[in-house]
């Protein structure tokens, strides 16, 4: 006798109908009356096939044949289970995973002294002592060669410049762009560039160069003056806002070849989401604003804490509703956290690892040492190799095995795992001392946020599906 029970999924409402987010596949299906009734019935407990079909057809007046067909469909997508075993183990990683993105930390020096900085702040893991402070020409070229040699089979690759403060090594940035463009053209590979900067060193010449070379720019800043200057300060303690404001305006006025994004680190002094968003999007004119709570061990002066995060999260929800009302009218809203999540939901990603770190993405420091990503650059403990000698496969596979969702048993019962996969490796290391530890301190927020974005996705699928085409090609950063 076949007995059916519920499979693993998250059910959510759009504006008028019900949807299923299937776990772990990441598929999203909309339900009709019959399929919704079957799931309602099974939510009371498992039921035999005969009883299920009998009850449901009687209740909603569908023919038993129709209900049988629906049961079959739900079973095929694993929304309901008949007890037969299914394999949920993720696919093995291919032995050679081609590199796609190289984050080059051109320098580990910075002209700001942001107190929360993961490179220099209280929770830093970098050990830059005795290492090069600026990347030299030879190392930079080796890095580019390394990217191009390890990205076999890719039609396009990316270089992201990072620091320290990236623009403190602008001459090298230009050289890398020239050299990499030339080498990529020779290999018939498309290459693009982006950078993250604190904006303090932008000049019209630099801005024009970035625009002419279509370099994507992300500016780190935390909002209006009082919030930005709480922690984003020079070494003498002076705030950075007054220096960067005119430069940011200049950047936004002159650079039109790529969307310019603001990246906000939320701290105990920067928690007013709406105020920050309005300022950065409307007063300054950024195309997009992305928010991330500061990475910290518990109880730092700048950390947000649980009540603060609850407040931030409820503001995220409100701003996300504003995003939805824009999207229903076919307009782009600048709250990029929503766009990033919608992009992943639209693809239906099902991650074995939280991000591409150590796999399709690597970080390289001024010395040429390779790290899983920019956040681990210059940390001896996390070094995976060097651009001149290649990756230490053993260390890489240790890092990847730790970070694999398979080894994070806490995550195995969570419906948000296809997107989250345990969260940032670096955040986990700072919190728990292990890159493979799931970030249990923000599970509830991740689930809440994912649910909010699912509802937005459902509403858009019902009312303005054309808007979702925007995400067909968008790659979440």
């Amino acid at each position: 006798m076949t007995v059916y029970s519920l499979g693993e999924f998250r059910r959510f409402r759009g504006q008028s109908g019900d949807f299923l987010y299937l776990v772990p596949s990441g598929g999203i299906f909309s339900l009709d009356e019959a399929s919704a009734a079957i799931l309602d019935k099974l939510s009371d407990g498992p039921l035999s096939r005969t009883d299920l079909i009998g009850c449901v057809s009687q209740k909603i007046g569908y023919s038993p044949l129709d209900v049988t067909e629906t049961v079959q469909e739900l079973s095929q997508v694993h929304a309901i289970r008949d007890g037969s075993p299914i394999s949920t183990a993720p696919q093995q990683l291919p032995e050679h995973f081609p590199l796609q993105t190289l984050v080059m930390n051109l320098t580990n020096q910075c002209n700001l002294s942001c107190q929360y900085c993961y490179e220099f702040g209280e929770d830093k893991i970098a050990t830059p002592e005795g290492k090069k402070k600026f990347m030299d020409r030879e190392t930079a070229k080796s890095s580019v060669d390394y990217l191009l040699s390890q990205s076999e089979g890719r039609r396009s690759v990316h270089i992201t410049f990072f620091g320290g403060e990236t623009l403190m090594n602008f001459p090298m940035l230009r050289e890398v762009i020239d050299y990499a463009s030339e080498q990529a053209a020779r290999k018939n590979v498309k290459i693009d560039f982006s950078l993250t900067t604190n904006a303090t060193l932008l000049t019209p010449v630099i801005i024009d160069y970035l625009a002419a070379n279509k370099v994507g720019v992300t500016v780190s800043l935390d909002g209006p003056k009082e919030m930005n200057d709480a922690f984003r300060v020079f070494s003498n303690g002076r705030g950075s806002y007054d220096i960067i404001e005119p430069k940011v305006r200049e950047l936004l006025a002159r650079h039109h070849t790529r969307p310019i994004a603001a990246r906000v680190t939320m701290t105990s002094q920067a928690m007013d989401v709406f105020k920050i968003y309005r300022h950065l999007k409307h007063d300054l004119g950024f195309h997009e604003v992305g928010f991330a709570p500061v990475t910290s061990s518990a109880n730092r002066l700048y950390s947000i804490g649980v009540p603060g995060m609850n407040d931030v999260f409820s503001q995220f929800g409100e701003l996300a509703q504003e995003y939805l009302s824009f999207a229903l009218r076919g307009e782009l809203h600048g709250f990029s956290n929503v766009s990033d999540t919608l992009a992943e939901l639209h693809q239906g990603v099902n991650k074995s690892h939280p991000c591409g770190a150590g796999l399709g993405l690597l970080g390289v420091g001024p010395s040429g040492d390779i790290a899983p990503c920019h956040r681990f650059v210059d940390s001896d403990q996390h070094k995976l190799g060097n651009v001149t000698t290649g990756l230490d496969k053993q260390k890489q596979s240790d890092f990847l095995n730790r970070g694999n969702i398979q080894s994070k048993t806490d995550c195995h019962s969570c419906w948000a795992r296809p997107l989250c996969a345990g969260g940032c490796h670096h955040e986990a290391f700072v919190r728990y001392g292990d890159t493979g530890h799931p970030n249990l301190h923000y599970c509830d927020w991740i689930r809440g946020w994912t649910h909010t974005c699912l509802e937005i996705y459902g509403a858009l699928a019902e009312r303005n599906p054309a808007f979702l085409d925007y995400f067909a090609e968008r790659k979440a950063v």
Partner: protein
Amino acid sequence: MKHLRAVNRKALRIEEHVAPAREDDVVALQNPAGPKPHIPMGCSLVFFPGWEVDSAGGTAGLCQPVERDLFDCYVTCFWPAHVPDHLNNSPDWTSKCAVGTKDWRNVDIVFP
């Protein structure tokens, strides 16, 4: 699918993946233009009480034992009614039904 609508890209891929696994429709044997019926390997269309005979009209020269045909008709064929329950094979098939075209009536009703 009729009752579930694939919304995101992964769902479309799932739908594509499960579509071929659906049960085949019932089709006519003589249907030159349309989809062909599933004919179990070894099944005979020439003489059709449900089992196959060799070129001499018997079962001795078949490339596979005749019992295999029973099983295949029952499990995968479109007309299972021809054969006794595959768990209860006709106990003295070979002695009663040496020549299928002539002797098939001898099989008679099989009581489990």
